[in-house]
């Protein structure tokens, strides 16, 4: 029973890590390797707003999501626009920017017990024999809400439909008047905002450290590779496989083997079906 519940929570956390990354890649083809850095940066923004500017927590959380989104937006126009079209230059630029951000945060001394965000709600409930606190339930709720919201957003709003058009065929989208750079920068902004939202709900569970940024990036990549990059269903299934796999490994083999699970899952998936579990044929051509 506890395996089920903690597996579920772990999976939702992984899905939250990944959702911004895979959305951004799916729409504009930008593999945003600074995803993890944006995640942790939003945490520190919120912390600074909360403790130094003295704002209430809810306000600072919302503000930091907005600030991160603007940062993603600017990131596209200032840096990515100049190397757009060569995927590897894009990748190196985002990777370097992400690493640079993380190192700057480390240099500023953002690690240690001091840096943690408050919980939204204290206390917890017991489901059968398993105790579970409200914050973790809140994480699960946010994850579910986000997926529903995103589904609605890309199927029923103008911008969302433009996103899907870009993802399916960039040239055709251009010919009906969807501006590629605008949508690209919006997708970066949305990806950054999703990273920030994930940070806002997950970070209160533990300490903040700039090295978490790297971890988030690794897990996001692992889930994206296992599930297939562009498909939302694949992302969810991928995060469930790795999430439950990790909890099971921790339970039956030992906590230190948790780290093997993403590695093993990636190797297995790549050997059996290189395009990811829910990858489409088009992806197969690109990847293999």
């Amino acid at each position, binding site marked *: 029973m506890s395996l089920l519940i903690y597996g579920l929570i772990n999976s939702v956390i992984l899905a939250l890590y990944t959702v911004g990354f895979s959305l951004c890649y799916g729409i504009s083809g930008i593999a945003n390797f600074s995803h993890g850095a944006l995640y942790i940066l939003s945490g520190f923004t919120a912390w600074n707003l909360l403790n130094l500017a003295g704002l209430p927590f809810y306000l600072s959380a919302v503000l930091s999501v907005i600030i991160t989104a603007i940062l993603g937006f600017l990131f596209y126009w200032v840096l990515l626009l100049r190397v757009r079209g060569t995927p590897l230059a894009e990748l190196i630029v985002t990777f370097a920017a992400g690493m640079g951000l993380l190192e700057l945060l480390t240099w500023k001394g953002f690690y240690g017990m001091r840096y943690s965000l408050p919980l939204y709600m204290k206390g917890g409930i017991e489901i059968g024999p398993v105790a579970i606190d409200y914050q973790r339930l809140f994480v699960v709720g946010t994850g579910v809400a986000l997926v529903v919201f995103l589904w609605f957003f890309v199927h029923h709003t103008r911008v969302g439909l433009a996103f899907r058009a870009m993802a399916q065929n960039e040239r055709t989208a251009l010919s009906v008047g969807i501006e590629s750079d605008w949508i690209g920068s919006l997708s970066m902004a949305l990806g950054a905002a999703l990273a920030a939202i994930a940070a806002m709900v997950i970070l209160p569970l533990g300490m903040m450290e700039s090295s978490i940024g790297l971890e988030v990036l690794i897990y996001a990549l692992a889930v994206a*590779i296992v599930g297939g990059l562009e498909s939302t269903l694949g992302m969810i299934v991928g995060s469930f496989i790795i999430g439950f796999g990790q909890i099971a490994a921790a339970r039956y083999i030992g906590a230190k083997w948790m780290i093997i699970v993403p590695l093993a899952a990636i190797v297995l998936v790549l050997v059996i079906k290189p395009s990811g579990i829910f990858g489409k044929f088009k992806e197969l051509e690109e990847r293999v």
Partner: protein
Amino acid sequence: MVEATVQYRRKRLDRGIKARTDTIFVIASKRDTLYLLLPRVLPVIALLILPLVLKGYWGKVVVFACMYGLLALSWDFMACCGLFSLGQALFFGMGAYIAGTLNYYFHIPPIITVPVATLGSGLLCAALLGPVVRLKGVYFAMITLMLPLLLKKMIDTTGIFGGTHGLPSLSPFPSELVATYLAVVGFLACLFIFRRVINSDYGLVLRAIRDDDRAVMSGAINIYWRKIQAVFISGAVGGFAGALMTHHFQFLGMSTFALDYSILPVAAVALGGQGTFAGAAIGSLILVPLSESLRALGGLRMAIYCGILIVSIIGLPEGIFHYMARKYHQFEKVVEVK
């Protein structure tokens, strides 16, 4: 009557020494010979003399520069067949751990462990990345980024091979000078061999895989096997650097899998220019002394690398080497626009 403003433009002319291709030259005089030889021979002589001149701290920097140079070369070699790696640290750490554990647990001297680590890390990396070479571009980069970090975490949590503490007091090379020259000569040899290989038929196939892998497949060449060979070669070079470093510092730790060893080679190649290996060499010979002189800044160093990486990719995408080569081979004069 409109007064015509005089406009000027730059006119570029290739020097007359080049015949048909970039690699075949017509030499008519001693001056031409010098013109061709100097840029090739001077850096080599300089690099060979440098360890004798520089002692102490900056002597170590020469070793560092050659290590990173080897990693940058191995990165460039893989990039030549379309494999863009973000995890050169995998090769480096693999070589370091093979050499270090052999020396620590079995007391095998460096003269055996270094070659064993070179070959072993080539084989292990080829085996590890073997299933993955089917991926291209971003996907391959993702996997290579993750592998060294996951291995590092694995060593951290399971505590094998010394765990977080590492393995201390490994046996050193006979003298400082031997280690330095091993690094320098290895670096230069690797540079020249790679430059020869990439222009041979074998290298042609590798470059063709990068440009159009389907066409190579239709020529009945097994591109995956070729890619695995490329991974083996560059894994061996990276492993050599790692083994050398381990014995030089007589210490083996998890830091050999750290991100520094992944980022700096990429930054060096991005700065120097990709595809000719000379660019990778120049890039690392510029970046490493620069980063050493920035050591006072401590943690900011990585951030500065990243800044250099971004600026050089956006500002000078072709890289310093290509830029300099173009300037060297061309006359430039200002002429009036008529």
